């Protein structure tokens, strides 16, 4: 679900550190270096990269608006090939039958089955198209805040890894404790009490 969908999911981050000036060029070049690659017709099962907000299926940071107001707006794209287990099973069975007919053997060894399965999977990965999943990213650079329009664990982990690789900046996920630490402006004594708190019981 994207930012402009009728129902939005937001995971929030604090961005630690600053980029090299000029920031806009640094962001654009860094995104370009880690743009999503096309894995259709190739062996990889999965690709993770950046894409442009307006044209997520045809990444183009030059034509798409990378800067909107005070925000960098782009998207994380995760392309995955999923081969249904039944399809692998069907192709393996056909391949094993051909192998038995070719060799005249009574059965196929475990090792041979493994080899056939590997070949079948490779063949299918070359033909099956990857399904793209797009998650919008809104980065308020000056405020050091970033939103990912997804709360899926896989998307959040992919973002954290790719963001660091791309910009050499760390993302800190804002959950209750980090939000309290980073935003509550607690006194030293209150901060010590925060570190020491234990669960409250309301059991009556």
């Amino acid at each position, binding site marked *: 679900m994207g*930012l402009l969908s009728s*129902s939005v999911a937001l995971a929030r981050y604090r961005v630690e550190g600053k980029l090299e000036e000029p920031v806009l060029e640094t962001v654009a070049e860094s995104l370009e270096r880690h743009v999503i690659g096309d894995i259709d017709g190739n062996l990889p099962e999965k690709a993770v990269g950046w894409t442009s907000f307006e044209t997520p299926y045809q990444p183009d940071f030059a034509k798409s608006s990378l800067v909107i107001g005070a925000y960098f707006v782009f998207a994380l794209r995760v392309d995955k090939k999923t081969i249904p287990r039944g399809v692998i099973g069907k192709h393996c069975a056909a391949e094993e039958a051909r192998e038995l007919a070719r060799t005249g053997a009574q059965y196929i060894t475990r090792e041979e089955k493994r080899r056939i399965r590997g070949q079948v999977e490779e063949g299918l990965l070359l033909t099956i198209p990857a399904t793209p999943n797009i998650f919008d990213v809104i980065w308020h650079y000056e405020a050091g805040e970033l939103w990912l329009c997804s709360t899926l664990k896989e998307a959040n982990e992919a973002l954290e890894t790719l963001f660091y690789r791309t910009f050499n900046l760390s993302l800190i996920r804002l*959950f*209750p404790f980090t939000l309290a*630490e980073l935003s*509550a402006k607690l006194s030293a004594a209150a901060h010590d009490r925060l570190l020491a708190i234990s669960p409250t*019981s*309301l059991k*009556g």
Partner: protein
Amino acid sequence: MLDVAVAYSRYRFLGAEFLTWLWYAVETEPDVIKAAAMGRGVLSVGDRIVLENSLDQPVERVTISGENADLGEGMLALKKGALVAELRLHYTAGDQDWRFSLKGDTLALTGLKTPRSAPVESADEIEGAVLDKVGLCDEVVRLVDSLFLRFVKLRVSERWREEVIPKMKAWIKGARF
């Protein structure tokens, strides 16, 4: 700062306590909510509450949902030691309204429905639509932050133990839904 993964597990209960306090504050302390919303709007509990009792093993989970849901079940779960794990909220400011769910463990917003803005009919309108939508989402993000930061300050103060817990217990005990 503590390692993020360690902090997430160690203080996971903080989010559930926040949502439980938020439910209590919405029902009994409208001035707190009003101050957090800077007098702009009204917050109410929506049509879904998920409670978890981590004292039980395996963890007991109670989900109350629907327009005419029986919140009494939720109170019963609170009496048994459960806390709110997920809360759907409804925020109204003027003629605009927002609906969203907050998850206690991450404070992530899900199912966020903002006031409607004009549909995007051409590529030229995308930038305006993005700014509108970010502004509308930000309204709720700031509200949640403001509420959470009020809660944290209360939570680490003496008032939490001396005043808030007894009041919340009395609210749970005397609740009539």
